[in-house]
C-alpha cells in the first residue's frame, strides 16, 4: 500500500514501442484536454453574465472554424490509426525459427507444454533474447492469455488454434493473467511468466526432466489412437502419408490448396471431411470429443517432427 505504482514493467522491445505510442497518445490527450479545460474555464470566467467583457466581435464565418478543427482532428486521428496498426501488424508476423510452446487454457489454469516434453501449470519459463511462439488452444470456454509486461494479449477461442509471439529481453518474473471472463475462478487463472538467461533456462529444462519430447509423446499417441494404421506405409486403407507434409502445400479434393500448418493438422483430426486431400476418399472418422487439446498438441508436434525440416518442435 505504501507505493503508488504508475507504470508497468516493460520486458520486451515491443513493450517499449507500445509504451512510446501510449506516451505520445498521453501527450496528445493532455494537450487537447488541457486546451478544452482552459477554454472552458477562461470563457466561463471572461463571459460570466456579470462581466463587462467586450462581446462585439460575434464570429460570422463559422464554417472556417468548423473545417479547421474537423481537418485537424481527422489528420491527427489518421496518423494515430496508422501508427497503432503498424505495431499491431508486427504481432502477426512471427519469425520462422521461434521456439514453439503449446499452451492449453481450461477452467481455470494454463498448461504449457515445451518441445522437450516439460510441462508446467500457471507458469511459463522462457529464455531471454529468444523468439518464442505460443500455440494456444482452449479446452472449454474463451480465455485470454495476457502478459502485461510484454503488452500482449490473445483470446484463446475453443475450437481453433491461436498464436502469439514475443521476445523477452529482460530477465524476471512477470504476471500472467486470464483476461477474458471465464467463470468462477477467472481471477485465479494465472500465474507467472519467468524469463531466464540461456544457462538458467537450460538448467531449468534439465531439472524438469521431460522424460520424452513432445513429438515422441505424439508418436505414441499416433499409434494409440490408431492413426498409424492408415497413415503409415503398409496401412490397410489408402490414406495420405504424413512424412514431409508439414509446412508444405496440400492440394484438396475441392481444387483449392492449403498449407499444412498446425491449424490444418488439428482441423483434419477433428473434422477430417472438411478439407480432404485430393485423390483420397473421405473415409477418416472424426476424432472430435475424443482427443484432448493436450494430446492434439502432441500429435501436431509429432507430425511437425516428421516434416521436411525435421520440425522445430523436435529440437
Amino acid at each position: 500500500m505504501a507505493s503508488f505504482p504508475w507504470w508497468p514493467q516493460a520486458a520486451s522491445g515491443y513493450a517499449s514501442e507500445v509504451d512510446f505510442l501510449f506516451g505520445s497518445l498521453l501527450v496528445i490527450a493532455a494537450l487537447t484536454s488541457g486546451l478544452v479545460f482552459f477554454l472552458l474555464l477562461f470563457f466561463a470566467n471572461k463571459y460570466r453574465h456579470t462581466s463587462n467583457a467586450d462581446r462585439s466581435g460575434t464570429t460570422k464565418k463559422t464554417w472556417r472554424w468548423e473545417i479547421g478543427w474537423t481537418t485537424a482532428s481527422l489528420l491527427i486521428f489518421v496518423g494515430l490509426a496508422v501508427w497503432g496498426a503498424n505495431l499491431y501488424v508486427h504481432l502477426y508476423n512471427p519469425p520462422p525459427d521461434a521456439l514453439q510452446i503449446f499452451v492449453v487454457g481450461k477452467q481455470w489454469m494454463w498448461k504449457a507444454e515445451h518441445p522437450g516434453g516439460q510441462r508446467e501449470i500457471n507458469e511459463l519459463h522462457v529464455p531471454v533474447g529468444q523468439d518464442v511462439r505460443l500455440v494456444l488452444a482452449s479446452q472449454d470456454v474463451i480465455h485470454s492469455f495476457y502478459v502485461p509486461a510484454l503488452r500482449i494479449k490473445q483470446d484463446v477461442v475453443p475450437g481453433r488454434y491461436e498464436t502469439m509471439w514475443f521476445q523477452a529481453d529482460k530477465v524476471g518474473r512477470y504476471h500472467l493473467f486470464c483476461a477474458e471472463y471465464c467463470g468462477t475462478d477467472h481471477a485465479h487463472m494465472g500465474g507467472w511468466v519467468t524469463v531466464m538467461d540461456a544457462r538458467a533456462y537450460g538448467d531449468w529444462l534439465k531439472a524438469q526432466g521431460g522424460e520424452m519430447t513432445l513429438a515422441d509423446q505424439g508418436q505414441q499417441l499416433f499409434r494409440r489412437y490408431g492413426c498409424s494404421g492408415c497413415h503409415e506405409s503398409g496401412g490397410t486403407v489408402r490414406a495420405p502419408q504424413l512424412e514431409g507434409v508439414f509446412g508444405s502445400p496440400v492440394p484438396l479434393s475441392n481444387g483449392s490448396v492449403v498449407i499444412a500448418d498446425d491449424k490444418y493438422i488439428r482441423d483434419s483430426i477433428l473434422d477430417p471431411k472438411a478439407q480432404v486431400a485430393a485423390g483420397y476418399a473421405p473415409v477418416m472418422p472424426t476424432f472430435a470429443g475424443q482427443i484432448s487439446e493436450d494430446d492434439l498438441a502432441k500429435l501436431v508436434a509429432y507430425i511437425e517432427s516428421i516434416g521436411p525440416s525435421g520440425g522445430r518442435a523436435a529440437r
Partner: protein
Amino acid sequence: MLAPPNLSYLNAKTGIRSWLLTTDHKRIALLYFASITFFFAVGGIAATLIRFELITPGPTLGSPDFYNRLFTMHGIIMVWFFLIPSIPATMGNFMIPMMIGARDLAFPRLNLASWYFYIAGGIVTITALLLGGVDTGWTFYEPYSTFYATGYVILTVFGIFLSGFSSILTGLNFIVTTHKLRAPGMTWYRLPVFVWSTYATSLILVLATPVLAMTLIMLLVERVFHVGIFSPQLGGDPLLFQHMFWFYSHPAVYIMILPSMGVISELVPVFARKPLFGYEFVVWCSIAIAGIGFLVWGHHMFVAGQALYASLAFSFLSYLVAVPSAVKVFNWIATMHEGWIHFDAPMLYAFGFIGLFTVGGLTGLFLAALAVDVHVTDTYFVVAHFHYIMVGGAVMGYFGGLHYWWPKITGRLYPDYWARFAAILAFFGFNLTFFPQFILGYLGMPRRYQSYPPEFQVWHVLSSAGASILAVGYALPLFYFSWSILKGKRAPANPWHATGLEWTTPSPPPPANFEETPVVIRPPYQYDREGNPLMQADNG
C-alpha cells in the same frame, strides 16, 4: 405564486388507473422516470457492493461466484434498464412533442405499450436476479453462456429480449413524430438539437435492436435445444456471437450518448444566452455518429481472433467516428465565446459533461490504436473509458436535462444551491472513482477480477473512496427533488430564459400541451444583444 395551480397534465385526472392507462406522453414519461430511477438505484447498489468488494485484494464480501453475479447484474441493469431508455424514454418522451409543437407523440397507445414492454422485461430480469442471478457478464459471451454458465440465463435473456421491444417502439414513435407532427414553421433546421439527437438515436434503436433480439433468441435456442450456432462443441462459431452482439452493442453506446449530447446542445446556448455555434455541423455530426457507429463494432474484437485486415479497417473507422464527437465539443466551447454565461445547476452538469466526455473520448483514441488496445482491452482501462462516456457523459447529461426541465415537468423549483453542490460533488467523486482505473488498466489489472495482486490495491482503495463521494452526489437529488415536489416554489413558464416551444406553455403544461398550435417563426437559441430570449413562437 400561491394561487391555485391551473389545470395541468398532473391534475387533469386522478386515480391509479388514470396513470397506468394514460396515453399522455407526459404521464408516460413520468412512469418511465419512476421505473428508471428504481433500476438506477438497483444498479447503483450493485456498483457500491462491487467497490466494497475491491477494497481488499482477496475476497471481501463473498465468494467469487457472488462477485461474478454482482458485476453481471450491475451491467445488465445499468445498460438495458437505465442507460438505453434513460433520456429518450423520459425527457425525449416528455419534450419531443412539446419542442416541435405537437399534442402528443404520433402513436400514444404504442407509447404506453412500450412502457409495459419495458416493465415486463424489467420484472422478468429482476426476478431472475432475485432467484439467484446469472454469472455470464452483461456480454453473454459464447460458449460460456450456453454450456458453462450457472444461474438463470434463460430468464435474464428473455427479460432483455422483452425490453428490446420497448426500444424499438419508442424509436419508431419518435421517428414518425419528428417527420409528421412538427408545428407550422418548424422546419428541420429550426428543430432544437435535442430533437435531432433523439431522432438519430431512434434510427439506431430501430435498426440495431432487432439484431440484439435475434442474437439473444439464437443464444436461447442453443442453450435450450442444443442447436449448434455459437458453440464449437456443436459446430458453431463463438466469434459469430461476438460479431452479432457488438453489432448491436456498439451502436448501443451511441444510443446512450447521443441523447446526452442533445441535452448539452440545449443547455450550453441557453445558459450562455447565445445561439449554438455551428448548428448545422452539430446536427449532422449526430447523424454521422449514428451512421458510422454501425461500422465500428469490430474494435471490441482486436484480440478475439478476427482477421488482421478486419482489425485494420475497424481501427480506422473507429478513428473516423471520433471526428464528429470532437467537432461537437469544439462547437459547445465556441458557443460560450462572447456569451452571457449563467452558472445554474444544469449548466454545471453541462460543464461536467464536456470535461468528462472529453477525457472519455480521448481515451477512446488510445483504445482505437491497435497495438495499445492489445495491451489494455479487457483491463480497467476499458472500464474507466466507458464509464467516462456512459457515466461521466450520459449520466451527467441525464442529470443536466433533469435539472433543466424539472420546473417544466413538475411546475416546481428546486433549491439551486443544493443542486449545484450535488453537481460539483458528482464531478469530483466521479473523477476520483474512475481516473485511478486508467492507471490500473495500463498496469495490467484485468476486469472482472474479484481478487488481484496486492500492488494494485492502492488504486482500488482510491477508486472506492471516490465511489462513496459519487454515491452522495447521486443520492442528493432524490432528497431535494422530493422536497421540491412537496414544498418547492411554483415555477414560472420560462425560468431559464430559454427559447424553445416547451417554455411557452405554463409549468406544468396543460394536458394538450398548447392552447392552440404554435407557429414557429425562427430557429432555436436566438437572443438579443442584452441576452433576452427571442422565443421560437410568439405565444398565443
